[in-house]
Every structure is written in structure tokens, then in C-alpha cells.
């Protein structure tokens, strides 16, 4: 319990550090957010002339605290930072007003897709990776094991975007037409019965989850294989064969945390390739539009999730292996 508390304290300190860096990054970025916002809104908010546009930019700058409303002079750095920190404390990375609400609305709309994809991929990675690793570890040194391990290495080395492209080409768009290539449901599926909608969802999820799970699966299997092979050579291995599983599981538990950054990165690629409306796709759109506040919110949320996952996997490791004492 105390260790968990200490972890949480570190978490808060780290978050503060992140916000310091964050402010510097947003404030020093060579992108003028007011100009950008005006340029982006040009579709639904037409400006009568250049003066009108200039006025909108000044208004936005005042709203974002970049200009002093009374004198129209640029505000000093510390005032900007104080304002920004006040906003950030409420997780308002986009600044005041509508911007902020729109940002969270976009995040709220996108996260269920990513959570579904990531959860299923994690399940697949551990569900297949651990038994596979245990089997391979028990046969370490045989020719079949060597081949399988080499195949796992290649699978882990395959960049996600490549795997996605190959699977899309072979099973989707060009050759076999076995799986749909985009979205999470068939356009006309709203009228279908629930079971058919579920089957449809699984059909759409198969390829993206396979791509997302490939890297973590290879990693988990190799890790477990090495751990089991090492334990297998210990003198007590024959007597305590039952404990092997536990010794193989311990490293897998520590792995859970480090898999999350992989999944976050993978979801950018996968959601982009399969046109899924999740956080990864949002990150890609934000990067293409140079929408720094949104990207920053995503980076911070991703780091936070990873931090929690690390804390969780440490705790899990201590549960699986009693010799581990948390610092």
C-alpha cells in the first residue's frame, strides 16, 4: 500500500514536470495558434475583409492570454504561464472556452474504439504469447524451436504499417476479399439483429487487431520462452516443474507495462490504415493539421496510461514472484 502511495506521489511530480515542459513547447512553438484557428474556421466563418480577419486574430490572442486586453501589448511570460497552468490543472490543454470543450468532445468520441482495439490486442498477445512461449521454452535447442523463434523474431521486427499494408492487400482490397478494409460496421447494418451486428463487428475487427497484436505477441512469447528455458536448466526444475509456469509468468507480468507504448504507437498506424475513428487516427489528423494542443493532450494521456500500466505491472510482478520487493 505504501509503495503504491509513493508511486502515486512520483506520478504527481512527473505530471508537474510534464506540464512545465508542455507549456514551454506550446508557447515556444513556431506555429501561431490564432492564425491557425482563423485559417481553419474560414469555412463556416467567412471574413468580410482583411481587417475583419485581423480583428478575429486579435480577439483569439486575447482569449488565449497572449495579448493584454487593456493595452493590446503582449503579456509577459510569467502571466502566460500562470494562466496556462491554471488551465492545465483542470486538464484544459486547449486553453479557454469552446476550444477546450471541442477537444474533449473529440477525445471522448474517439477513445472507445482505441480501447476496444488495444484491449483485444493485449488479450490476444498474452492469450497466445504465454502458452506459445512456455511450449517453446520447454523445447529450447531443438530445430523446430529454432525455426519458430526465428519466425517470432521476424514477426516482431515487422513494422506495423508494413504488416497492415500486406494484410490489407492480401486479405482485403486486392486479392481474397475475405475481410472488409475500413470502418467498424457495414453501412447498412443498423437494421440487422444484434447477433449479426456482433458478427459484423468481429469481422471488421479481425485484421486491425491482428496487426496491433503481432508485435506484442512476439515480444511476450520470446520473453516467456527465454525465462522458461532459463528456469528449465536450474537443478530444481524437475522436482518443481509446476513452478516453471510461475517463473515464466513473472517476466511477462513486467512486460505488461512496456507493451502499452507499443500499442499506442500501433493504434496510430492501424487506425489510419483501416480508417477507424479512434485516438490514433485523431493523433494523425492532429499532426497533419499541426493542432498542437490536441496532440499534446494525447501525448500526456498516453504517458499517463503507460505510467499507470507500469505501476500495475510492478504490483503484478510482486504478486506473482514473492521475492520481489517494491522500492
Amino acid at each position, binding site marked *: 500500500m505504501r509503495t503504491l502511495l509513493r508511486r502515486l506521489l*512520483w506520478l504527481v*511530480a*512527473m505530471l508537474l*514536470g*510534464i506540464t512545465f515542459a508542455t507549456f514551454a*513547447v506550446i508557447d515556444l*512553438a*513556431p*506555429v501561431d495558434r490564432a492564425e491557425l484557428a482563423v485559417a481553419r474556421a474560414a469555412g463556416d466563418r467567412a471574413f468580410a475583409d482583411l481587417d475583419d480577419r485581423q480583428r478575429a486574430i486579435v480577439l483569439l490572442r486575447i482569449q488565449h492570454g497572449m495579448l493584454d486586453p487593456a493595452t493590446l501589448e503582449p503579456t509577459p511570460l510569467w502571466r502566460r504561464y500562470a494562466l496556462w497552468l491554471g488551465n492545465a490543472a483542470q486538464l484544459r490543454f486547449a486553453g479557454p472556452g469552446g476550444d477546450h470543450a471541442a477537444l474533449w468532445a473529440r477525445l471522448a468520441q474517439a477513445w472507445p474504439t482505441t480501447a476496444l482495439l488495444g484491449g483485444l490486442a493485449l488479450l490476444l498477445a498474452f492469450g497466445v504469447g504465454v502458452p506459445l512461449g512456455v511450449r517453446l*521454452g520447454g523445447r*529450447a*535447442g531443438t530445430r523446430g524451436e529454432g525455426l519458430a523463434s526465428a519466425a517470432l*523474431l*521476424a514477426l*516482431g*521486427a*515487422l*513494422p*506495423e*504499417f*508494413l504488416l497492415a*499494408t*500486406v494484410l*490489407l*492487400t492480401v486479405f482485403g*482490397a*486486392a486479392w481474397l476479399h475475405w475481410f472488409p478494409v475500413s470502418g467498424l460496421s457495414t453501412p447498412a447494418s443498423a437494421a440487422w439483429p444484434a447477433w449479426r451486428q456482433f458478427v459484423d463487428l468481429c469481422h471488421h475487427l479481425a485484421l486491425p487487431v491482428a496487426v496491433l497484436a503481432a508485435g506484442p505477441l512476439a515480444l511476450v512469447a520470446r520473453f516467456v520462452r*527465454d525465462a522458461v*528455458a*532459463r528456469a*528449465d*536448466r536450474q537443478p530444481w526444475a524437475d522436482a518443481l516443474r509446476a513452478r516453471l509456469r510461475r517463473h515464466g509468468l513473472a517476466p511477462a507480468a513486467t512486460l505488461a507495462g*512496456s507493451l*502499452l*507504448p507499443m500499442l*499506442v*504507437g*500501433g493504434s*496510430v*498506424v492501424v487506425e*489510419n490504415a483501416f480508417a477507424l475513428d479512434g485516438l490514433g487516427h485523431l*493523433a*494523425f489528423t*492532429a*499532426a*497533419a493539421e*499541426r*493542432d*498542437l494542443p490536441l*496532440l*499534446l493532450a*494525447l*501525448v500526456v494521456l*498516453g*504517458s*499517463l496510461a*503507460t*505510467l499507470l500500466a*507500469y505501476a500495475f505491472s510492478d504490483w503484478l510482478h510482486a504478486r506473482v514472484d514473492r521475492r520481489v520487493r517494491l522500492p
Partner: protein
Amino acid sequence: MSAAAPAVRGRLSRSPACWLLAIVLLVGALAPAVANGVPLAVRERGAWSFPALGEAFGRPSTAPDGGGWRRWLQAPRADDVAVWMPLVPHDPLATDASAAGAGPSAAHWFGCDAAGRDLLARVVHGARGVVAVAAPAVLLAALLGVWLGALAGLRRGVVEAVVLRLVELVACLPLLLFLLFASAWCGGSATALRVALVALLWPAFARVVRGELLALAEQEFVRTARGLGLSHGRVFWRHVLPQLRGQVATTAAFALAAAVVGESTLSFLGLGPNGASPTWGALLRDGAAAAPLGAWRPLLVPATALVALVVACHRVAERCQPDANGARA
């Protein structure tokens, strides 16, 4: 552990993965001299010139008559002129409508893409991305990481706490998201990408060096050296660091694989650094667009190069590890 270094070197020189890695780096560094429409060497009236080699070092060249090379090469030549072309005598950007979508042939070893550009020449020039972005980033990250890791391991106290917290902080950053962020921050600038990669990769080195330092500090030879009055820094650089070569090389190989994949992914998404010659990620982007139309070669050739390099990095990393070949040995 102390006998690891020569053994590692012996294992490395027999490894095809290590040779592949070296070849990719060499080819990437000298790409204009390996694949170019410009001659490698020209002898005219007894005077030698090496235009393609010059281009590899950033000097643009003109044909002897002051015009373009293409016309000069096709024009009838006098007797005392000799021309040696590079290994792949094609410009990666030159289009040839008559060879559009062509398969492998004597002229184009791996065929051409839909615009008639030689695929091998494009892959060779794509390796420049590895040399220009990923490799320097890993090198800088290694220097920074080893230095900070050594500082943390030797000084302990506050320095160690700060370095460790930084390491933990960076470990939580999702690599690709951070690269996207860097790309959005500075638009497609290669320097920004390099800086972002260094920021993401140094902690791995720092962690390894610090961990090994803690283990080595109690060993006989370190104590002896300290007892002889050598300073912390001298003991580290002269006596401890050589012991860590294998570990650092392992980390560097993994980091190189991560950097190459990160850079390619960014380029594949269309957010990579904009340079004159397309990197492997950008080639794969073109290939992926063409693959559903049945042209699979523009996808397959750069994909093979990328996967081979990443697998080679992993193999080299495994080889360099002093005592982790475990059950495989």
C-alpha cells in the same frame, strides 16, 4: 564478463547480419556513388574526374561540355574519352516512360515503378535516410546516455535521482506519438526528428550503463584502480567502459532498429522529413498505394530492405550481448 570483448568481436565478424548492417550504412553514406545517372569516373584527354563521388560529398557536377549528363552521355564521343558508370547506372528520380512497371531485367535489376524509375536506385538512395537521420540520432543518444548513466552511477545522490526520474519519464512517452508531435511542432524538419529520436533513445543507454556500473563497482579491478589513486572519471573511461562495450552495442542495435522503424512509419504516414530523395518509408507509401492495383514490386523491394535491416539489427543486438545467449548457445 571480463573475457567478453574479444569473444563478441569473433562472433560478430562471422555474422551475416553484421555485414548487412555495415553494407546498408556504407551504401547509404555513399548512395550517389552507388546509384546514379552520373558517371563514377570520366577520363577525357588524359584528365580524370569523379563526378558521382563528388555528388556523394555534396558537390553538384556538370558534364564536361557544361550541360546535363544525360545528353552528354548519349552524344557521340571522341576516341580519348572513357566513362565508368556506377554499379546501378540510374538516377532515382529520373523517369523512363518506356520502362514503366517493367519487371527485372539486365538494365533494371529489380524492375521499375509505375513512373519508370529504377527501384534499386530508389532503395539505395532511401538508405540515405537511415544514415542521415537514424544513425546520427542513435550515436548522439549513445553518447548522451552513456555520459548521463555514468554520472548517475558514479556520483549517486541527487544526480542519480534526477537521471533516474528522467529515464522513467521518457520510458512512459509513446515513441510514435512523440514523433508525430515533433513533426507537427517543426513541420517536416530532419533536425527536429533527430532531436526527438535522441530524446527518446538516450534513456536505454543510461539505464544499461548505470546498472552495470553498480554491479562493477564492487569488482576487484575497479577497487584496485581506485586504490591506486585513479580518479572516478579515469577509472570509468579507461577500465569500466571497455567492459560495457557489448551492452552498449546491444542497446545501440535495438535503438537503431527503433529509430529506423519510427522514421519509416512517420514517412509512411506522410509526415516525415521532406528531403530531396525519398526515404524507405516514403517509398513504401508509394508502393502501398500501387499494391492494390496489382503492382506489388514497388512495395516488396523497399519492404524487403527495411525488414532485412531491422532483423539484422536485432540479430546483431543478440550477438553483442555478453552472456544472454542463454539456452540458445
